[in-house]
C-alpha cells in the first residue's frame, strides 16, 4: 500500500517538474508534424525565441512576484513607459549637439553612449515604478492586485503624457539590433542578443531563487507569511525588493520592445501583463504563492509563442489563436489543481 503511494507520488513529482515542458514538446511536435513545412527549421526556432524574449523577461519578474504570493498588473505599462523613455532620451541627446561632441571627446561613437544613457534612464524609471508598487503594498498594506491595477493606469498615463500621446521617433543606435536576427557572418552567436539577455537573466533569477537567502525568503513568504515573520524574516523588505526587481525586469523588456519597434509607443504592450501572468501560471506558478519556477515560466512563455506563431503560419485568424491560448491556460491550471488534490 505504502509502496503504491510512493510510486504514484514519484510519477506525480516527475509530472510536476516536466509537465509544462512535455506540453511544449507536444505542441511543438504537433505543429512540426502537421503544420507548415518550415516550422521545424532552425531559423523558425530562432524566431520563436526572439518573439518570446520580451514576455519571457517580464515573466521572470512576475515569477518572483507570484511565488511571493502577490501579483503585478503594471508590467505592460512599464514596458510601454520603457519604450517612450528610451526613445525620448535618444531624441533629446541627438538634438543636443554639445552632448554628442562631448561623447566624441571620450572617443566613443556618440550613438553608443546615447544608447547606454537611454538604457540607464529606463532602468531608473522602472525601478521608481517598482518602488511605488512596493511601498504602497508594504507600507499602506493595500492588496497587490488593487495597487498594481492603479499603477497600471498611472504608469500608462504617464507614458502617454511624456510621449504627447503619439509615437516618439528615435535615431538609430545599437539598441535597434538587440532583436534583429543574427546576420550570416554572425550566425555563431546562434540567437539575437535579446534572447541571450533573456537566457542570462533567467539563469540569474534561478540562482537567486536557489542559492540565496533572498530567494529562500521569497518562497517562505509566499508559502506562509506568518511563519516567515515569526522566523524573523524582514517580510516588508523582501516584498519591496521583489516588486522593484519585477519592475526592473519589465523595464528591460521595455528596452527590447523599443528595439523591436524602433520608436517609443505609449500604447504598446497593453494587456501584456495577462500574457506574462499566463506564462507563469502555465509554468506551474500558483497564484496563492509559494510555487513557481523560472524554467516553467520560460516554457510557459514559449508555449504561447509557439501556438501564436504556429497558428499564424498555418494562416489561422487571430481569433483562433486567442481561443487556443485561452484553452491552454485553463487546461494548464486545471491540471495543476488536479495534481494538487492528488498530492494532498
Amino acid at each position, binding site marked *: 500500500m505504502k509502496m503504491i503511494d510512493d510510486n504514484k507520488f514519484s510519477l506525480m513529482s516527475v509530472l510536476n517538474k516536466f509537465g509544462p515542458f512535455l506540453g511544449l514538446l507536444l505542441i511543438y511536435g504537433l505543429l512540426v508534424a502537421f503544420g507548415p513545412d518550415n516550422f521545424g527549421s532552425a531559423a523558425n526556432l530562432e524566431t520563436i525565441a526572439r518573439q518570446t524574449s520580451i514576455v519571457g523577461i517580464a515573466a521572470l519578474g512576475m515569477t518572483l512576484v507570484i511565488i511571493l504570493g502577490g501579483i503585478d498588473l503594471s508590467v505592460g505599462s512599464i514596458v510601454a513607459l520603457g519604450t517612450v523613455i528610451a526613445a525620448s532620451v535618444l531624441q533629446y541627446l541627438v538634438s543636443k549637439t554639445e552632448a554628442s561632441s562631448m561623447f566624441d571627446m571620450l572617443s566613443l561613437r556618440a550613438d553608443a553612449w546615447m544608447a547606454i544613457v537611454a538604457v540607464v534612464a529606463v532602468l531608473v524609471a522602472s525601478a521608481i515604478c517598482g518602488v511605488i508598487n512596493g511601498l504602497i503594498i508594504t507600507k499602506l498594506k493595500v492588496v497587490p492586485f488593487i495597487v498594481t491595477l492603479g499603477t497600471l493606469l498611472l504608469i500608462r498615463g504617464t507614458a502617454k503624457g511624456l510621449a504627447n500621446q503619439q509615437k516618439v521617433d528615435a535615431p538609430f543606435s545599437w539598441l535597434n539590433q538587440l532583436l534583429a536576427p543574427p546576420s550570416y557572418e554572425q550566425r555563431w552567436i546562434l540567437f539575437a542578443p535579446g534572447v541571450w539577455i533573456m537566457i542570462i537573466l533567467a539563469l540569474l533569477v534561478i540562482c537567486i531563487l536557489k542559492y540565496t*537567502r533572498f530567494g529562500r525568503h521569497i518562497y517562505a513568504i509566499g508559502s*506562509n507569511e506568518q511563519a516567515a515573520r*515569526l*522566523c*524573523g*524574516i524582514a517580510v516588508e523588505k523582501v516584498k519591496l525588493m521583489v516588486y522593484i526587481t519585477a519592475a526592473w525586469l519589465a523595464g528591460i523588456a521595455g528596452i527590447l520592445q523599443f528595439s523591436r519597434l524602433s520608436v517609443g509607443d505609449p500604447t504598446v504592450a497593453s494587456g501584456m501583463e495577462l500574457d506574462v501572468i499566463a506564462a507563469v501560471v502555465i509554468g506551474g506558478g500558483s497564484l496563492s504563492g*509559494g510555487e513557481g519556477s523560472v524554467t516553467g515560466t520560460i516554457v510557459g512563455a514559449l508555449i504561447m509563442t509557439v501556438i501564436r506563431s504556429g497558428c499564424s503560419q498555418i494562416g489561422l485568424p487571430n481569433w483562433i489563436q486567442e481561443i487556443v491560448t485561452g484553452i491552454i491556460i485553463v487546461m494548464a491550471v486545471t491540471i495543476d489543481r488536479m495534481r494538487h488534490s492528488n498530492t494532498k
Partner: protein
Amino acid sequence: MHNSSVKEKLPKLSMRNISKCFGATVALDNVDIAVYPGEIHALIGENGAGKSTLMKVLSGAIAPDKGQMELDGKPYHPHNPLAARTSGIGMIYQELSLAGHLTVEENILLGMEPSVCGLIKRKDVRQKTAQALSYFDHPEITPGTKVCTLSVGAQQLVEIARAIAVGCQILVFDEPTSSLSGHDVQRLFKLIKQLKDRGMAIIYISHFLEEIKEIADSFTVLRDGKSVGSGNITDTSTENLISLMVGRELGKLYPRSNRTSGKVLMEITDLAGAEKPTQASFELHQGEVLGIAGLVGAGRTEMIRAIFGLDSVKKGKIRIGSYFGPASPIRRWSEGVGLLSEDRKCEGLALSMSLADNITMTNLSGFGPLGMIIPARQLAAAKFWIDKLNVKCQGPKQKAVDLSGGNQQKVAIARLLQHNVDILLLDEPTRGIDVGSKKLIYELIDKIACGDKDKGIHPKAVLIISSYLPELLGICDRIAVMCRGRLNPAHLTKEVSQQQIMFEATGSNGRDKFQK
C-alpha cells in the same frame, strides 16, 4: 529533596510583575513565573486567562506595560520575535508555523540561513540540519522532504528541530497534543523528556490536566490575568488545579438529567464511505446523546461527513425521517440535521464575519419580506442566542475571530440551534477549550437532549464524537466505539467501562477476546 536542590539553582527564565493592558481590558496583572533548567513547567488556565498574552510577551511579539524579565539572571527585553529566538526562546505553536512548500531543511533554518553575501552556504546548512534532526529517531523526516507531505506529528517535530537548530534553551509548547493521535502524543512526550534531560527549560501549555500530571514537574496557574498558584505538580491534585483555574467549585462537571429516548430519528445501515468508514450501523433516537469513541483516524469524522452528504457514500443506507436517498448538505439542513465540524477555524465559522452572520448563516429566512435581511431582526435573533448560551462578547456585531475558542464554539452550536435542527452531529465539540467552557457546553448538550415540555421545545437527538473518554462517559446515554473504520454496536453508558472502550478502540473486542 531533589526538587529543592533544583530550585536553589538560578532560574533559566524569570518573569516578574508582568502587566499588560489592551485599552480597558487588563490582560496580565502582575504575573510571576520562574522556570528552571531541566524542568517542565506547566502553564495552566482557562481560555482568556492570559496564557497566550504572557507567551507573546515572552516571545517578543508584544511589549509588557511593566515588569522585568531575566534570562540566566541577565535582563531580557526582546523587541521582536527574532530577538527572542536569538536569545534562545523557541515557540512551538498550536497552529504550526511552517512554510509547507519548503523542505524540512529549508524550514529548519528559515530566517537564519548561514550565508556569505546573501549566498547560502550549503555545507553549513546540511550540517546544522543533520545536527538538529539527530535528536529524533525519525527516518521519514529527511532534510529534502517537502513539509506539506509530512503528517501533523512529523511537522511538529520539524518545528521543534527548528527551535533546536537556533540553539534555543527554552522551549514553549502551546497545546502541542491537540491535533495528535495517541501514538504521536507518546512520541512527543518521550522527546520532551529527552530535551528536559539535556537541561532545557520547557514551558508546557495544555488543557489536558492528565497530560500535565504525566509530564510536568511544576506549574503556574493563571486566572483573569493573575498568577493564582504555583508549585510542584506532585504536591497537588487535579481537583485542586481545576479549582485554582476556575476560581470556584465547579460542581458536577458532567450534568445529566433524566432523559427518556423517543422514536428513531436517524437510522444508519451498513454505511461505507470511499475509504472509511468500512461498516457502520446505528440508530439515533430523539432525546438521547449517543457518543462515538475511537482513536484519531478511526474514521469517525468521515462517517458523519458521509452522513451529512459531504463525502461520498459507497454503500449502505441512511434513513432520516422517511427519506433514504442520496444527500447533500443543503438537503440535510432542510431535513433538520446540523453538523458541527471538528475544524472550527477552517470549516466551522467564518471568522472574519460577525457573530450575527455566523449564527444565522444557514437560515437567513424570516428576517424580512421577499428574502430581504433586515439587520435589526438578524441581530435580535443572534442576541437571543448569545444571551441564552452566555457567549462572552461585545455584541452580535463583533467578529468571530475576536472570541476565545470556547466562545467561538458556543457560537457554532448556536447556529445549529438557530436553525432549529432535530439532529445535532457534533465532532469534537470541546476540543481546545477550557474546563469552564466545557462544562457550559455539557450543560447545553444536556438541555438540548432533554427539551422543555413547558415551553414546547422538543427533545433533540445528539451524536457526539470525542477522543476524550471521560466526557463521553459523563454525558452520553449510549456509546459506540469505532475501530479502523468499523463501528461496533453501541453500549449503554452505565454498562460500559473506560477499559472496555479502550479495548474496543484498539481493536480487541473485550477482555475475553484480548488473549487471541
